[in-house]
């Protein structure tokens, strides 16, 4: 799997040093929306310039190259163990070559492994596919935005959130209001709704892999995604939290069935540097 390893190293390089075109376009469009001469407009123009420079010079666009999260769709018959080993080897190599910042820290010894591998690091989710091709999606999830995420258990009387989509709307607004500028807005907001804590946190993060134009296929959720984007942008938090019209670039909601007694909502915040990419093999 030597060639696949090289492919994953290149995937790392592409994802760390360039933004997906839809996010870059959204940043540029937001820049034009902000008042001329405002801090918001100059912040977004620095961001746009940074995106260009990073891509042109093959440097990571953010020094926090994050926690690598892999979503792998594996054709029947391919070994998950071998794929995992290949991804780990590629991670070590990419840390040197791109370079990535070593981010894997042992909780007990506080030692940084130095190569972005460790217990449960990077995160790799496997799923079997009936397709003949192997698909590897990679997200580099920055910690500033990861720290800004919130898990909610409904009902929640403090914000009047009941067990319905209006309650979900309130959770998302609460999470963004509390995040302020700390997670590098404009944000891309992933939301997961379902029966258990572990399931909704994963579901929320997975929504961040969706393209900005990709609205939910469920009409009620597509409407909530649109409404939430308008509501969030009326909060006035703005680019980097210094005020302005652009606090989010997109809201993406995913649902699972819930238990009659449980209604969990997870809000995963993605920074403007929403680094995601795909390798098809």
């Amino acid at each position, binding site marked *: 799997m030597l060639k696949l390893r090289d492919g994953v190293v290149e995937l790392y390089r592409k994802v760390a040093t360039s933004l997906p075109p839809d996010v870059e376009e959204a940043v540029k469009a937001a820049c034009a929306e902000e008042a001329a001469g405002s801090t918001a407009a100059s912040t977004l123009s620095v961001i746009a310039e940074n995106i260009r420079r990073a891509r042109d010079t093959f440097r*990571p666009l953010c020094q926090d190259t994050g926690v690598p999260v892999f979503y792998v769709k594996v054709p029947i018959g391919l070994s998950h163990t071998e794929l995992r080993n290949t991804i780990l080897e590629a991670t070590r190599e990419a840390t040197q070559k791109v370079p990535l*910042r070593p981010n894997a820290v042992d909780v007990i010894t506080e030692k940084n492994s*130095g190569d972005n591998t460790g217990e449960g690091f990077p995160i790799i989710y496997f799923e079997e596919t009936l397709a003949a091709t192997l698909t590897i999606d990679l997200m580099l999830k920055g910690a500033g935005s990861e720290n800004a995420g919130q898990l909610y258990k409904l009902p929640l009387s403090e914000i009047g959130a009941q067990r319905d989509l209006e309650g979900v709307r309130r959770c998302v607004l609460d999470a963004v209001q509390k995040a302020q500028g*700390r997670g590098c807005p404009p944000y891309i907001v992933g939301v997961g709704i379902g029966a258990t804590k572990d399931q909704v946190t994963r579901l929320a993060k997975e929504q961040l892999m969706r393209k900005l134009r990709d609205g939910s296929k469920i009409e009620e959720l597509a409407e909530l995604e649109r409404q939430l984007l308008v509501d969030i942008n009326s*909060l006035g938090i703005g680019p980097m*939290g210094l005020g302005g019209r652009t606090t989010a670039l997109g809201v993406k909601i995913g649902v699972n069935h819930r238990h009659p007694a449980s209604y969990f909502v997870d809000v995963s915040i993605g920074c403007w540097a929403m680094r995601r990419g795909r390798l098809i093999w």
Partner: protein
Amino acid sequence: MLGDAKREAHMVSPRNLTLPLSAEDVSLLKAGDIVLLNGPLVTGRDKVHKYLVEKRPPKTEIPFDLAGTVLYHCGPIMRKTDDGYAVVAAGPTTSIRVEMYEAEVIRQYGLRGVMGKGGMGEKTLRAMQESGCVYFHTVGGAAAYLADRITRAVGVWKLEEFGTTEAMWLFEVASFPAVVTMDAHGNSMHKEIEALSLEKFNELISK
């Protein structure tokens, strides 16, 4: 993208500051001022702050003079070169994580500036007012852009123990762009924006 005229306006307005800063330099700065930093500054994030507050190292243990300097919340990507280290990417990290330590670090070591992203809380704001220190906000994620404003990595402290990300680096910067968002007179843009957005949030959930 900004038009040329707007870009020019943005280029002209910032005020150049030479580091280290004096008490007077700092007292003249107001929340909202756009500045360009020039001169030496140091980096420090989670581990440096914890160490400074828990171990209280004497100033002689630290190879750099922190009095009057700016402490930049940054864990850079560095590349080893033949004669030292080159800065690859160096944007700010989230400052609020060191809120429990910063007031004491400002008082103990005489910092005149703290730089990062997202702003800091009441405790730090009070220490800034008492000691004469400001918070410089710079653009999160703009790591390539900001690395290009760092002319040199001059030195490093605690590299072996903390690693490249968490070590204290001494950088020389030129025209390093930032906005003063918390001044030495008790003003905080973060506090104001948070209050306004909370008001709006309450409106949105009372529909």
